[in-house]
């Protein structure tokens, strides 16, 4: 039961942080090249553009929610399990969400890279 609770928390954490990243990505694509905006209108304009984008705020809310899920999961399980498990699953989950929601071209090279990073992060706790 306890381990089920823990994995539900990890699952929510992974989903929330991947969804947050996907929303941030979509929001930034909508705003356009931040460097161009900074050169043309200055740093304050960049911050203004970003903060006024609703999708950015929604993504940020998802990331904050995932942070609280992380704290909850950490209080239920070992840090050596929770941190790497959630981080590595997030890379795979984000790739899947990016493929379906952002229609990114996730080719073999990118799947392989996501898998390598995922296993690499898992090895970090050993």
């Amino acid at each position, binding site marked *: 039961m306890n381990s089920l609770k823990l994995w539900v928390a990890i699952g929510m954490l992974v989903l929330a942080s991947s969804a947050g990243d996907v929303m941030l990505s979509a929001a930034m694509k909508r705003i356009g090249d931040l460097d161009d905006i900074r050169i043309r209108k200055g740093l304050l304009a960049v911050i203004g553009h970003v903060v006024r984008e609703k999708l950015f705020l929604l993504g940020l809310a998802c990331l904050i929610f995932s942070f609280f899920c992380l704290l909850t999961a950490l209080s239920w399980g070992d840090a050596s399990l929770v941190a790497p498990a959630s981080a590595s699953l997030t890379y795979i989950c984000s790739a899947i969400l990016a493929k379906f929601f952002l229609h*990114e071209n996730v080719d073999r090279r990118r799947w392989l890279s996501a898998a390598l990073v995922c296993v690499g992060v898992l090895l970090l706790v050993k």
Partner: protein
Amino acid sequence: MSTLRPRGLQADIRVKFKKIFIYLAIACCNGTGDVLLKRGMDNLGEIHLNHWTHIFNAFVDPWIVLGILFLAGFFYAYLTALSWADLTYVLPATAFGYVVTAFLSRFFLHEAVSPWRWAGVLLITCGVGLVARGPSLTERRTTEHRTKDAVLADKEQHELA
């Protein structure tokens, strides 16, 4: 015409360098920020729940302030990169933060890093290297942008005419 072409080339090179710089900033700032925070929290000592206000002392510790600045720089670079590259291209670079953390933990904080960890560092480096060599933006998108630009240019020409 002859002056336009080198300028275009220069702009291309500038954009390329800018992208490499942002990618490196994402890779390095995250890990460095974390290590600086850890260094600052070592100074501060353990936080007890009964004296939780002690945590506000963290904001006057120079290491922690520097760490927060690095993490803010990371977030800015991350958002900038997302404004012109795919999420699946940028995300592996964030994982490179773990590699930086491992090196800094070993040589700056003098912590022990196990062979398994070095193996993980190697795998992450391979993953990041693999994706960084590929295209940064989905091809279909680029053409979409180009067609939008082309439409705008056509409009402008039309208006001028």
